């Protein structure tokens, strides 16, 4: 459904998190290398706890995470050190990463901070072994085409990757990230996508960012008038970003409508939690049957609204369930969806009667251990009360398709304190002025089509490709740009589609092969076969130099055919098909091309073959 976003007062901003492709991590000297979890060399276990602020307060987001005392498991590798283990103080801030962050800042027209201070931002969901993420504000106030404003760029450490449940992998922890935060200056879902795409392009233009799934993540902040600021974390696909915004606007519109309806009905939240375990003694519902305690919350005036859809696949009841899950329960039951799940109409009627629930009232059930159920019932009441007020400020996570689920309250600004183990870094004018601005990928695409003769689409594809550095190198080594671009974009992709392990191909060999084509050592037509052969034999023992491997590949796949060899082959082919040649005349050229090319296994340029064939056919016909 499309809304009138201007009328709704949509305001959106984004935070883009991009991993940097530096040699070392941000606060230790480990490589920024991701590993397979199967390669882990050990595991250890930790608990995290919220710490009190000066005023005896615990940050609300941290407190929420603490409802469950969770034991976190960490996978360690031979490529991580005691810093990631939170067993050694951090090393000084990585200067290479700072340089990249400053480059991006300069490209966005920002003002650097005189002296950069590293902070600790509390994160106790287990994704940081220390319980905080180190982050530093590097520059302020940038501009974007279209008039949007960049507020800040920060340099921070990447968190652990979740393996499953409460198990995390330490390989990703500490990879440098830049976080770019815009002002809430976007007013339509498409604006958000345009801005995200532009910033992504600027980031890639540095040539120093990681590429691939999960290396860039967008958090989207969305609010509408009378709504609330909601942060949606971790949108990885750019194409979904507008949909996420549309669905969040929809959610807020629906929740406001529910609020209005609740108020019109004079709805309220009953503060008593009723133990109804006994009512379900004979139940057929597997979940209720095995629960130690079943508690019920009565929500006067909520009937029909708990089950009302607020986003595709999501209801107000889903929001209540998200809150309840913080206590470790699997979910909730509510009367808008009952009878179902093995709960009979009779049981529902008995439940309603027992709670003296009127027709307009909803009842929510939680089934778990007594302690968990008590906690969950409390959470359901909290969320129900919020529904009467409107929309809570929240951090949410994206679900498949673009709907979202509650994660935790928005953290307060009060969750940061100084990282005293890392000295501040002063950014002098020498450092700042010495930063050279890389060419934007959009300008580079224009240059490729203008100067290198690539057509516009290929030029743009090449500029934005991960293989851009290899392309530039290949061209610098004397290979024609179109040949280089078509090989790197077209041929490699086709080979990959056919299951050739092109990821194993060393850049050196690709460059040398294309040079061999340019120098006439082998034919353009042989490129796919040669690349397949090189990929297939990559990593074979005994080791050969790239030059030796190219020579061996040409020898086995497309041995050199001399002019004399070619003439002999052409002579034989034509002779064997003399009748066909007489029938078709010069029309035989096309069909015989294929035959000869197969014989020479693509090692002779097509034009040479064509010329030799033409000559031979003319001779026979004369």
């Amino acid at each position, binding site marked *: 459904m499309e809304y009138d976003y201007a009328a709704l007062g949509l305001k959106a901003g984004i935070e883009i998190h991009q991993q940097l492709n530096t040699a070392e991590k941000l606060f230790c000297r480990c490589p920024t290398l991701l590993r397979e979890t199967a390669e882990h060399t050990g595991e*250890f*276990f*930790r*608990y*995290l*706890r*919220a*710490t*009190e*602020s*000066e*005023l*005896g*307060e615990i*940050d609300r987001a*941290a407190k929420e995470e603490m409802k469950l*005392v969770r*034991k976190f498991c960490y996978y360690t590798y031979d490529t991580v050190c*005691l810093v990631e*283990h*939170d*067993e*050694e*103080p951090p090393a000084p801030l990585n200067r290479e990463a700072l340089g990249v962050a400053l480059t991006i800042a300069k490209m966005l027209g920002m003002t650097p*901070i*005189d*002296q*950069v*201070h590293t*902070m*600790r*931002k*509390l994160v*106790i969901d287990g994704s940081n*072994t*220390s*319980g*905080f993420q180190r*982050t*530093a*504000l590097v520059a*302020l106030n940038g501009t974007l085409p279209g008039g949007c404003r960049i507020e*800040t760029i*920060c340099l921070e450490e990447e968190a652990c990757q979740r393996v499953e449940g409460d198990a995390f992998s330490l390989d990703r922890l500490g990879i440098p990230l830049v976080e770019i935060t815009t002002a809430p200056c976007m007013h339509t879902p498409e604006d958000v996508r345009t801005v995200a795409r532009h910033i992504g392009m600027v980031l890639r233009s540095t040539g120093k960012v990681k590429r691939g799934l999960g290396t860039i993540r967008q958090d989207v902040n969305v609010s509408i008038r009378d709504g609330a600021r909601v942060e949606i974390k971790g949108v990885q696909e750019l194409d979904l970003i507008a949909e996420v915004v549309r669905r969040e606007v929809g959610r807020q519109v629906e929740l406001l409508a529910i609020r209005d309806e609740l108020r019109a009905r004079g709805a309220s939240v009953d503060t008593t939690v009723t133990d109804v375990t006994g009512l379900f003694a004979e139940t057929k519902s597997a979940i209720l049957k095995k629960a130690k305690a079943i508690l019920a919350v009565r929500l006067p005036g909520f009937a029909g609204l708990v089950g009302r859809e607020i986003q595709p696949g999501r209801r107000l009841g889903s929001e209540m369930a998200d809150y309840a899950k913080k206590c470790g329960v699997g979910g909730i039951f509510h009367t808008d969806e009952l009878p179902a799940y093995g709960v009979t109409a009779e049981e529902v009627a008995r439940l309603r009667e027992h709670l003296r629930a009127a027709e307009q009232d909803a009842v929510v059930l939680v089934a778990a251990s007594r302690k968990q159920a008590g906690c969950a019932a409390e959470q359901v009441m909290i969320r129900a009360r919020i529904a009467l007020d409107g929309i809570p400020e929240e951090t949410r996570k994206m679900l498949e398709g673009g709907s979202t689920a509650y994660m935790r309250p928005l953290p307060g*600004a*009060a*969750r*940061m*304190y*100084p990282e*005293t183990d890392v000295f*501040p870094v*002063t950014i002098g004018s020498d450092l700042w002025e010495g930063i050279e601005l890389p060419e934007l990928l959009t300008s580079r695409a224009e240059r490729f089509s203008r100067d290198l003769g690539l057509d516009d689409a290929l030029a743009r594809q090449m500029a934005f490709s991960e293989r851009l550095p290899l392309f530039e190198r290949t061209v610098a080594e004397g290979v024609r740009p179109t040949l280089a671009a078509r090989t790197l974009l077209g041929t490699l992709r086709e080979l990959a589609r056919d299951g050739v392990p092109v990821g194993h191909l060393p850049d050196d060999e690709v460059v040398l092969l294309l040079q061999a084509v340019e120098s006439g050592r082998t034919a353009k037509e042989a490129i796919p076969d040669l690349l397949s052969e090189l990929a297939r034999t990559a990593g074979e023992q005994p080791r050969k130099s790239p030059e030796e491997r190219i020579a061996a590949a040409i020898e086995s796949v497309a041995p050199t055919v001399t002019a004399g060899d070619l003439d002999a082959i052409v002579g034989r082919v034509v002779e064997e098909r003399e009748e066909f040649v007489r029938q078709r005349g010069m029309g035989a050229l096309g069909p015989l091309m294929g035959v000869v090319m197969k014989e020479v296994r693509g090692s002779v340029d097509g034009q040479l073959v064509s010329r030799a064939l033409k000559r031979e056919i003319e001779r026979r016909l004369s």
Partner: protein
Amino acid sequence: MTGTYITDRDGMAVVKLDTGYNIGISPAEVQFVERPAPRAAATPVVIQNPDLPELSIISTGGTIASRVDYRTGAVTSQFSASDILRAIPELGDLAIYRSRQLASILSENMRPSIWQELARSIHAEIESGVDGVIVTHGTDTMAYSAAAVSFMVRSPVPIVFVGSQRSADRPSSDNAMNALCSAAVATGDLGEVAVVMHASTSDDRCAVHRATKVRKMHTSRRDAFASLGTAPVGYVDYPSLEVTLSPEAVRRGTHELELADELEERCGLLHFVPGMPPAILDAYEGYAGLVLSGTGLGHVRTEWIPRLSDLIAGGTTVVMTSQCLHGRVCDRVYDTGRDLLAIGVIEGEDMLPEAALVKLMWVLAREDDPARIRDLMQTSLRGEICRGSR
């Protein structure tokens, strides 16, 4: 852009922006807007359960609780029993607490006179009837202090030293688990001085180390503390807090309460290195005791022997330990060793160099007869010497 001015650093004004980030900016660019009103700290009262055992927490400056001011970023240490209980509420399930702040120093600044004050405080607390004592201590010198206290105080109840390798302001700190495990030990069946710290990098159990056999063996890891030459005298599982003591652990009530707080402070510990000139020993002229941390089985270079002989003749007791840390000194195998024995150097058996130092301080404060000193130094008084090596 507004924020709170925090301090001055390297000529820059450090300002905490409203977003929580600190930045350093040139003071010329800072414009004063207003002075924030001081905010009153909330001090919720913690109610303790009088049916539980009573423990005394004596703080020397090591923090098991601290609090962060997210506005300024300052971290402040918490010492009162209610502060500690607010930070680690689960402690309230184990005992009721009284607390005493003896000192507020970094443990690298620890000195023998504070060990004596500590011993007297511990003695007074036990005399007043507490069921156990917890000493919070910085980790750098905790093993020295614990060993010193174990010589000075004989106790029927547990005396447990505890600290944290990660500062208490971080959510990952080892403070809470160490504190809870130490309270479990302090209310348990132990009857000696111990150090209770993480047994591994995981938050799964703490080791109970005998005070005279423990050493900090890593600069930063949680499991930096290790028992050397012997196994820990117990373990505490976490989070169950179940304490398992080994048969060697001294049990509650084994000893009567006793205080012997004299120490001879003029004692030194010297780590011998190749080429170290004998003139180094001049610095120990007039010392009552010197522990040598020698090489291998207990050696120093041959050129030291005449100078050492003079020191001993001048009344300095010299005890040999080994920088190998693991193993027993034996000066009867090689010539150098036999020469050392001949001039009167005392073999320190398998004592850790640091434990030998504090023991020597304690012994020399009580004895001046050389034979009696030698005898005491070679007798295990607090488990500092094992009969057999394992």
